[in-house]
């Protein structure tokens, strides 16, 4: 008799557990942000510093192979930045282009050829070799992108834009220095360096 009783109690009511599990699952799926494919994958150096990058009000400068790619978070800010840039350089973008720009990943082309990149399908963009944003003193579009992104961010969010440099570990120092100089020319003296995670002991 006793053995029979035990057999009966093996099945538990999973309904409540299932409910909780799916509630949590829904929460995490909704809060998760889809990972945007990177146009230029870089291998960031490791560090033990644990500070995380902010989610908003952030511009990322990806540096690799001597090229600089630019990315700003936030659709509205991206649109406004593009508007300011197109006014400055006299390059016209249609509404459709602006919407594409708002949802696109980082880019590394001169503004004159930005339209070609926008016309491509997202999957094609990463296959094209992008030459990087011009950053020399004669044609310093990078500085203008940063400047206009800051203006746009202040207009929309009323906050100062944070700048992060995401450099490839093997990148030579002069290129990083050039980017830092551009930032410093705009009185941006405080910025972040994106690093990977390193274990405690090394």
């Amino acid at each position, binding site marked *: 008799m006793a053995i029979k009783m035990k057999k009966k109690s093996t099945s538990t009511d999973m309904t409540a557990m299932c409910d909780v599990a799916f509630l949590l699952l829904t929460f995490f*799926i909704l809060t998760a942000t889809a990972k945007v494919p990177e146009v230029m994958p870089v291998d960031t150096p490791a*560090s033990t*510093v644990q500070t995380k990058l902010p989610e908003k009000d952030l511009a990322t400068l990806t540096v690799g192979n001597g090229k600089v790619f630019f990315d700003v978070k936030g659709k509205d800010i991206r649109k406004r930045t593009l508007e300011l840039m197109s006014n400055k350089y006299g390059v016209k973008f249609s509404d459709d282009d602006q919407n594409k720009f708002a949802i696109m990943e980082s880019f590394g082309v001169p503004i004159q050829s930005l339209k070609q990149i926008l016309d491509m399908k997202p999957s094609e963009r990463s296959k094209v070799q992008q030459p990087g944003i011009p950053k020399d003193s004669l044609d310093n579009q990078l500085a203008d992108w940063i400047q206009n992104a800051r203006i746009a961010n202040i207009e929309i969010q009323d906050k100062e834009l944070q700048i992060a440099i995401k450099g490839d570990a093997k990148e*030579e*120092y002069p290129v990083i220095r050039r980017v830092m100089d551009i930032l410093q020319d705009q009185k941006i*003296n405080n910025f972040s*360096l994106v*690093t990977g995670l390193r274990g405690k002991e090394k």
Partner: protein
Amino acid sequence: MAELNTGDGGGKKGSKKVRSKKGNNKVDLTAMVDLAFLLITFFMLTTTLSKPQSMNLGLPDKDPDKDKNKDVKVDENRTMTILLGDNNKLVRYVGLLATPVSGGAPKDFVYGKDGIRKELLSRKEAVLQYTGNKDKGMIVIIKPSKKSNYRNLVDILDEMAIVNVPTYAIVNDFTPEETKLLGENAAPVENAVPAEVPNP
């Protein structure tokens, strides 16, 4: 375990069939819960781990007018200069290059725990004893050469954070002697402006 309520074929209106339905209308949810938790784990890990780490770096104001950039004079006994060269070469000296303090002659080190970190820790103690003032700690001057790479810079900044060096600066001008120390013909970086970084 499967206690799925299988249909009775329908149509028949026997009272026995109705009773059997009441008995096992439970579905086994174990597999479903397993799957749900697996997905939860996946989403939890990906959301928190995908945020990249970052390191804050503050640089001093840079005036476009060169004359306004004042060089800060500091006690040479408190300074350690770290030169970053190519192929992960790292040379440090303490004090002035021509007259280094005792034990501070230019010497090669390696990155990491057993290399430069030990030296930084011991120097930090020594400087504190020398000044006898907690506010006057060690000053580290980091000089990355043209051949050094970004990983070297981040590594050394990371060491600064680990050792908790109160003041460090990134300086870009090389003297010919320092270039010689690195054993390379890296030309001095032109248009160099000293940059001082207070530890955040």
